[in-house]
């Protein structure tokens, strides 16, 4: 029935509709997210001549004209052999890329503004060794990674995309290209890996010191003192010079910003460090609050102070260690997004 209905439409609109359908499937093909492993089939690999390929066609024309003009029988032979070699190169360039299996690998977590690494796994299940594959994110002008994938083997490429905001970052679209074997044709393909990297909030620069006494303890003795050495914190203007932790400064991790640190002394009972979003001044922007919390998480980890995190309804109990830090940073990264529940 529908076929009949279609047949009754005027030809022009039918052709137009068909074209529109084609275009949308093309767009889908080039931009859709590829779930799991992907095989580069002939619908995904594009081939066009390179500049050298255009030069080669000029050479072919010169060979043909020379052969015709001087009636060189063998010259015709050379011309057609060269032309056929060009065509074989086109097919070989396509085959160098086609039927590769692509799989996203691990994606590392980074702070906003850093380069997020995406691991891509290329598997070659054919008997044809692949050479000189250029892989990079689509927006890169000059591809930076070249790999070879031996027959029946695999290769790993780590691409990096610049992260901008916290949360999940989609892997950028990847462009795979090759000019092997003769460089006359460029075969390329796009791949949208189904992979994402976690982007933590950017740790605030010049954040206020850790709220070690964020909440006054019931006995009122939890304030900062000068009796017991409790750790170090970022230098704040006004800290007395004799309290600077010179030894720490000497071996300080540059990831903290290479700042000065001040020795912190506490008197009385050690309070549990609670980093609470709601405890921050309400007039601050949410992103700035998260940014400050991220800085505090790093600092607490550095000073080996067990810390708990409270983000509205979400609460992470006090703890220490890389896993705890990662959990806290992830909670900060995903706060307010749909993935928060994870």
């Amino acid at each position, binding site marked *: 029935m529908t076929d009949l209905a279609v047949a009754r439409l005027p030809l022009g609109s039918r052709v137009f509709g068909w074209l529109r359908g084609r275009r949308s499937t093309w767009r889908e093909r080039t931009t859709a997210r590829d779930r799991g492993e992907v095989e580069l089939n002939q619908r995904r690999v594009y081939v066009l001549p390179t500049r050298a390929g255009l030069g080669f066609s000029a050479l072919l024309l010169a060979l043909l*004209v020379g052969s015709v003009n001087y009636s060189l029988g*063998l010259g015709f032979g050379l011309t057609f*052999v*060269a032309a056929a070699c060009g*065509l*074989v*190169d086109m097919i070989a360039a396509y085959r160098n890329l086609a039927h590769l299996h692509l799989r996203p690998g691990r994606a590392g977590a980074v702070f906003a503004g850093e380069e997020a690494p995406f691991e891509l796994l290329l598997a070659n299940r054919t008997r044809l060794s692949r050479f000189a594959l250029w892989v990079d994110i689509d927006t890169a002008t000059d591809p930076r990674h070249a790999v070879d994938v031996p027959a029946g083997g695999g290769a790993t490429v780590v691409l990096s995309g610049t992260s901008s905001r916290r949360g999940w970052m989609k892997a950028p679209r990847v462009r795979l290209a090759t000019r092997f*074997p*003769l460089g006359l044709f460029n075969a390329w393909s796009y791949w949208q890996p189904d992979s994402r990297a976690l982007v933590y909030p950017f740790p605030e620069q010049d954040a206020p010191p850790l709220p070690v006494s964020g909440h006054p303890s019931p006995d009122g003795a939890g304030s900062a003192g000068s009796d017991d050495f409790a750790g170090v914190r970022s230098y704040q203007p006004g800290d007395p010079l004799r309290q600077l932790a010179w030894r720490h400064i000497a071996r300080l991790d540059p990831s903290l910003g290479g700042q000065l640190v001040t020795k912190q002394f506490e008197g009385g009972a050690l309070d549990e460090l609670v980093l609470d979003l709601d405890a921050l001044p309400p007039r601050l922007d949410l992103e700035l609050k998260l940014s400050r919390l991220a800085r505090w998480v790093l600092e607490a980890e550095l000073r080996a102070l067990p810390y708990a995190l409270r983000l509205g309804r979400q609460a992470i109990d006090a703890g220490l260690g890389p896993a705890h830090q990662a959990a806290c940073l992830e909670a900060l990264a995903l706060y307010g997004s749909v993935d928060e529940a994870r």
Partner: protein
Amino acid sequence: MKTLRPSLPRFWSPLPRDKQDTLLLLASTVLVLLPHTAHLPLWVTLLCGATLVWRALLTLLGRRMPTNLVLAPMAIAAMAGVLQTYHTVLGRDAGVAMLVLLVAFKMLEMHARRDLFVVVFLCFFLVLTNFFYSQSIGTALLMLVSIVALLTTQLSFQLTGAVPPLRTRLLMGAKILALAAPLAAVGFILFPRVNGPLWGMPDDAHGASTGLSDTMAPGQFSSLAQSDDPAFRVKFDGPPPAQPQLYWRGPVLGAYDGRTWSRLTARPHLGSKAPQPVSISVRGDALRYQVTMEPSNMRWLFALEMPRALPQLSSGAASATPELELQASSPVRERIRYDLASYVDFSFQPGDTLDNAYQWLLLPYGRNPKALAAGQRLRQDYPEPLQRVQAVLRQFATQGYSYTLEPPLLGVDAVDEFLYDTRAGFCEHYAGAFVFLMRAAGIPARVVTGYQGGELNPIDGYFTVRQSDAHAWSEVWLPGRGWVRVDPTAAVAPDRVQRSLARALPAPAPFGFEGLGRLLQPAPDSLLARVRFAIGAANNGWNQWVLNYGPQRQHALMESLQDNLFSWRSAALLALACAVLLLGRKLSRQRREDPVDRLYSALCHRLGQLGLPRAPDEGPTAYAARVAGAALAPGPKAAAAEFLRRYSAWRYAPPAQPQFHGAGLPTILKELLSRVR
């Protein structure tokens, strides 16, 4: 056992990749330039060699390449040198020399990847220019080797990481060529051919060649007789005529100045009578044949006496003179092919009178008095012209005349000296003297030059007519019978006409050894002769089908293809081939996949049919757990669980263990699969 490794890899392998690539490019360039050294001036060869060696040393020592300040004066000096040598920079040979120098200098000025392509493309063009000088089978083989070298170089430059050994890369290059070959053959056969040239060619576009000219002086034919070059090849449609009938007519010479016979150029007509039409009557069937003529740089075409019609040439129609000389519209500068039909039995202008007969009776004044007197005597002795002809032939046969390639030199009265003193000569002496005597005896006569005979190659059935078959004979006009061919050489040396020149002459003895001469002139049935015939047939096939595959041949081939292709038999064959190809493709694709993986896919498919499709992200273990919890009959469920357990164990075996499944695994899995219903 310890083996000695060749020193090359040791020297080769420690070189960095880019240096290896550069040396490979140098080697390919040398391969392309090498055949050019045969025709280039020595200084160009030496300069190119020095430049390439310089480049190799720069590469090996890791030095920097010369700046343009050094290169530019060198290039200008080289251009001046070409101008000095060839007096032009535009001609064919000068152009080739310039290209060769350009490639050599470009090697010193390579900075970017683009420059590599420039050098490789120039090398491709230089391979073509080599065909100006030689298009033999050997050149074609060298071309293939050069192409493999160039392809290998090109693909070596494309590599980024892993570099396979040179041998593997050469194999890759050869593979590209092998894959290209059928495609190239199709292009070669089907690409529409046009007749060149597209524009006027430089004067040196065609080299000098040996062959018949349109004059005849003593010594000319004997020098041609030394040349083994083929003049043309002939393929008869039916059985070939006998050797004594193979007279290939060429220029007809009627003017004699006492030394040289030449064609009549001015054609004065006495009175205002229109020239008599040329009348020919023929008897019997025409012989059909095809002539493939080598380039001669002359307009003459050769045909068996007497051609029925003018041959059609691709370059335009041929024409004929009243003497029945065939001419092309322009000099034959490339191999041409034409079809002809000829009558062996014919009468040529068989009237009772001959127009302008005086032209064929003129003799130079005051020369050769003895021969002149002899001719007049003949006229008195024999009233019948035919009797005079026979008398002279009898004289040649009986009075101690000999046939030799090295006749004594003759003075001013050449005919007299030859007839009465030296009595030794080659065909031009006999033909010339005979025509002189005939004219003196009052019979219109002329010298006909051309070729006589030919060698049949039993392998491909082609007659090869060589320059050494060049011959001169004569024609006399007899009232009522017309122009009659008389070959005085046949009277002296019947073998020359009956068999071949080599049989007619005494066996040569190179360096004084009789046996050596026999070795060089092998008997027709010896092994050496058969090898020679085979090589000749290969060369002829090469000429016919590769070098001379022009519009005509293409047209003929297409027509025969059309006839053969559009029959049910070929269609059935084509369909069968397609089916076999598709089946083979399918099988090979199946084989490529691991059988265990294939069985796993089959299981997933079958469980999907039972309502339990595998989720895309589900591994076999998770799938097994889901299957175990699903509502499925206990038998299939157990089989599927066992299948998945075994598959999972095999698939995720630690890499240290052998990856190969036991020979039994596919069988077991297949059995389990059959139980899942």
